[in-house]
């Protein structure tokens, strides 16, 4: 049991020892380990994206009374493989009048925050590539970077739909960053640490979703907005802006945007699980299995939301963010602060 729980930790240890035994200096060992982690993270993120693209199609099909992809491979599970290969071989179109460099760099940059964020996510007990002391702070800082490539993509395409989508994306992602951060702050107040492993361990008795239900709700809403998913999919807004920021992207560049969207959603689900749903903690099964089960359920919940709700309008989005979510999340932090103070100091009489 303990072995399975820590199997990946042991593998990492084994590689580290092998590298050291081969006579590399510690610096090179660290570099080697970094490469190993990077490959692992890229693997996780690509696999997760490929899996979840199909899972979304299947789950959407289930919601819509139909089977979803089921012909290619066992029950259709190779469908996204075919899609990915096809996208690789599609013609790459750069519209005339586009800012070529920006247009090219946007889909490359969109993956940077994704990979950076996954570096600190604790996939299991002791299973984070880097366990930073400022884990949550780092996560917030890194994920907010993804606004920039999206705006680059919209700006560089020389298309009005793209530009409109990009404008909406920036407004939306910047506004919803704030409630997102505040919703996480409540948890940080309780645990007194920014370290993700610490937060998970603090939930061994009770998950923070029960201590911070409002924060969890705010987190879910803000996270949906951050990842540009329905009902907050205004930047893409299929029925309004044809394909929004992605209108002029074809082939692999578009595929990168698409994969990044799913990776981001995966990260957001992972953060939600880590901070509110007890992370990798759970009985009987190895810790990383628990982590993936919980993330999967949260991800499925996001899919469920997406295929149920209509899209909201841009001014309603801003109103809701600034006039409702921000005050609510502030109040939540305030009340949590008082609660924590009372818990540690008593009422003073």
């Amino acid at each position, binding site marked *: 049991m303990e072995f399975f729980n820590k199997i990946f930790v042991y593998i990492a240890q084994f590689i580290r020892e092998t590298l050291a035994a081969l006579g590399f200096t510690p610096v090179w060992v660290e570099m080697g380990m970094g490469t190993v982690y990077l490959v692992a993270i890229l693997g996780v993120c690509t696999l997760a994206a490929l899996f979840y693209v199909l899972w979304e199609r299947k789950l959407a099909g289930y919601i*819509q*009374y139909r089977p979803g992809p089921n012909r290619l491979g066992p029950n259709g599970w190779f469908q996204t493989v075919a899609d990915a290969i096809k996208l690789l071989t599609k013609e790459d179109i750069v519209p005339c009048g586009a800012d070529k460099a920006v247009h090219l760099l946007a889909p490359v940059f969109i993956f940077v925050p994704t990979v950076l964020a996954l570096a600190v996510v604790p996939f299991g007990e002791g299973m984070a590539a880097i366990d930073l002391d400022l884990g949550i702070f780092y996560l917030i800082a890194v994920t907010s970077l993804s606004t920039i490539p999206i705006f680059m993509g919209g700006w560089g395409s020389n298309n*009005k739909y793209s530009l409109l989508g990009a404008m909406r994306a920036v407004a939306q992602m910047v506004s919803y960053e704030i409630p997102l951060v505040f919703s996480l702050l409540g948890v940080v107040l309780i645990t007194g640490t920014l370290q993700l492993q610490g937060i998970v361990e603090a939930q061994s008795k009770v998950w923070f979703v029960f201590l911070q239900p409002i924060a969890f709700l705010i987190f879910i809403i803000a996270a949906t907005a951050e990842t540009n998913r329905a009902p907050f999919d205004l930047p893409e807004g299929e029925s*309004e802006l*044809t394909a929004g920021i992605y209108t002029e992207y074809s082939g692999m560049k578009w595929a990168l945007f698409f994969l990044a969207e799913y990776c981001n959603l995966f990260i957001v689900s992972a953060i939600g699980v880590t901070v509110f749903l007890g992370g990798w903690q759970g009985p009987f099964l190895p810790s990383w299995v628990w982590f993936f089960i919980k993330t999967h359920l949260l991800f499925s919940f996001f899919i469920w939301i997406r295929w*149920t709700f*209509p*899209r909201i*309008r*841009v001014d309603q989005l801003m109103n809701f963010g600034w006039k409702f979510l921000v005050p609510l999340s502030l109040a939540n932090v305030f009340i949590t602060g008082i609660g924590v103070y009372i818990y540690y100091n008593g009422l003073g009489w």
Partner: protein
Amino acid sequence: MKTQTYTLNLGPQHPSTHGVLRVVLELDGETCVGSKTHVGYLHRGIEKILEDRTYPQVIPYTDRLDYLAGINNNLVYVQTMEKMMNIEIPERAEYIRVMLAELMRIASHMVGIGIYIMDLGAISAVFYPFIEREKILDMMAHLSGSRMTFNYMRIGGLAHDIHSDFKPELDKFIVEFPRFIEDYHRLIDDNEIFIARTKNVGTITAEKAKSYGLTGPNLRACGVKHDIRKTNPYGIYNRFDFEVPVGEIGDCYDRYVVRMKEVEESFKIIQQAYKELPDGPVMAKVPKLIKPPIGDVYHQTENPKGVLGCYVVSDGTPKPSRVHFRRPSFNNISIFDEIFIGHKIADIIAILASFDFVLGEVDA
């Protein structure tokens, strides 16, 4: 700060223009400050073609006007011709016509509502009405051989009597349909986002609606109780008991509500007609070669989209000299340029979707 407006071309290929409508928007940020609607991208010149067809050959072309409700379009043309030639049609044919017309009204509204909600972003909501529509199309396909372009009515009656399968299928539909309506109301009516997106959006006053010649659910949503089935009953519509639902302020939400209620009223009519369905022939005695007297006739019926009129000029030959259709969608969408102004792009999509127009009918 000095700002500039810009032009956004919505269509002819755009997911929310339901075909090939083109709207050129002048935008200030996201807000519309000017708009010009261009139609004609599906102008097939039907009216000219019809001058070169015999009278019965016109019927299949009417199917292709409002292709979501082919039967209703058949109906207006055959009734115009019957009016012109003074043909009394058998009772049974009348009842079957009413039943089919109301079934198609439901089918058409199912598409209208489903696509409306889908354009607001709730993609799954289009799937449930389409399931109900499929049931109706199945019945119609068994009856006429086609899913959308039926060519089932004839001048003087129907092509043939209903089929033995039709009754069990209709029985099944009558049992299953109310449940769908209930479910759909639960799914959409109280949805916060839906209400926020549609309430007070695209409001049209009754005066303006009348001036623009709006008809059908779009007019009734503005609070005008106008339904040709009640005001100028054609066929045997005066025998049925049904309400004309009206909205309050004529916004997008009212248009949804009116359509949903209308579906229920149609369902009531179908049940009544089905109960009273008499036996007998379905075709009156009509000469083999249809040669109406010289003259012209205008007739109009209540289509799912609004008032569909048909104007036929006969010069005494077997071919019509002129066939003209008053296409409700054409009149309905002429109001767009005025009501778009001041709305956001997302609202414009909502308004477009809530009008439930069909380009085949707009452009003819």
